[in-house]
């Protein structure tokens, strides 16, 4: 009797395992269905406040000297990038080949509530804005004039931002001072400026900005957003291209608020 009841228990557990596995597979396959999205949204909104509070802990440096110096440094870097851009625009106007691009954009504010990857250099950031806030895949995410990344995944209440350090991140970039063009590729702890023609000039500590890539729906990365600073240059005179290591100016692990550029 005891033997048959334990056999029955074991059978029950085995059936249970297979049922739950099948249920998990079904949900996985239909992860974009309405009931699943509703449940996902419910969980996300329930945990939004505690995640927000927990993530913000230890990131508030408002009273410290380091915070004020960091802020001053950021402002100075922005001014340097502005100067380089104004200089190149001035030269373009002088040569009468200027193009005026007056784009108006809307910004969506969001708080960072989680991250993925290394804690010092996160490759993904989770923000509390999603489908309900009209967030779309491919939208640029910025902080002041700095490009933080692009929206990679969107769910009901949350979205995942692929930072510029993510190995899957790519954006067209340029060095305004010399008009050198290239592609920024994420490399976990730094960025790689690749595909710069050997005849172009790269300068150490030069500020790299975006070239701009907006699709026909008005979603994408605006031009002249600051990406980072050149830390080292790799140049071989016999090769057709040169590249450089670019480090971000912003510490992504310390960010708590960002903005998304919605349709333009």
């Amino acid at each position: 009797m005891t033997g048959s009841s334990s056999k029955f228990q074991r059978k029950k557990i085995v059936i249970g395992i297979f049922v739950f596995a099948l249920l998990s597979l079904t949900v996985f396959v239909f992860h974009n269905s309405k009931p699943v999205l509703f449940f996902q949204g419910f969980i996300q909104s329930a945990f939004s406040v505690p995640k927000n509070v927990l993530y913000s802990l230890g990131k508030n440096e408002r009273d410290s000297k380091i915070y004020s110096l960091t802020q001053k440094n950021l402002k100075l870097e922005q001014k340097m990038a502005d100067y380089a851009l104004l200089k190149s625009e001035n030269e373009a106007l002088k040569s009468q080949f200027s193009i005026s691009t007056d784009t108006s954009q809307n910004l969506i504010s969001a708080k960072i509530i989680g991250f993925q990857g290394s804690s010092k250099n996160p490759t993904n950031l989770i923000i509390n804005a999603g489908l309900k806030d009209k967030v779309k895949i491919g939208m640029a995410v910025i902080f002041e004039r700095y490009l933080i990344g692009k929206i990679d995944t969107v769910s009901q209440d949350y979205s995942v931002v692929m930072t510029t350090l993510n190995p899957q991140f790519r954006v067209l970039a340029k060095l305004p001072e010399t008009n050198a063009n290239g592609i920024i590729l994420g490399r976990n702890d730094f960025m790689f400026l690749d595909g710069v023609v050997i005849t172009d000039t790269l300068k150490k500590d030069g500020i790299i900005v975006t070239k701009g890539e907006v699709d026909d729906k008005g979603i994408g990365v605006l031009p002249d957003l600051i990406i980072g600073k050149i830390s080292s240059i790799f140049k071989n005179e016999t090769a057709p291209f040169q590249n450089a290591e670019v480090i971000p100016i912003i510490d992504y692990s310390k960010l708590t608020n960002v903005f998304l550029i919605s349709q333009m």
Partner: protein
Amino acid sequence: MKNSQLIFLLFIFILVSVLLETTLLNFPFVLLTGLSIAVFVRKIPMFITVFILGFIVDSLRVSYFGMTSLMIFGTVILLFLYEKYLGNKDFLVSSFFIAIATCIYSYFLNYSLFAVLLFFGLFISVLFILDFLKKKGKIFI
């Protein structure tokens, strides 16, 4: 400790794990906890808990919904098949299955693989030391 107290403590532990994992620490606490519960405490209420836990983590990490639960129950099925056809219930084998599943999960879902490997390295070292001491008769567990 009473069962109800144990369940309450487990609930608090799981809640804290979920919040920490999806906010501050990039370590798969929930998968590890869920796998351990599903593998070592094979009861239907536990399966339901682990099933729901998987969905909560997937929602908060914005990964494919159902991925975590699928990983947990897929591992349990493989372990069950191993026990049925190749061997008996063995703590070390079960731990090995959990370790492999956690590493695969961490690799594909952008967790800190280094932290996971370090954790399992320490865990296996402790197991071997305990096993060695047990064989020497220094400890009785």
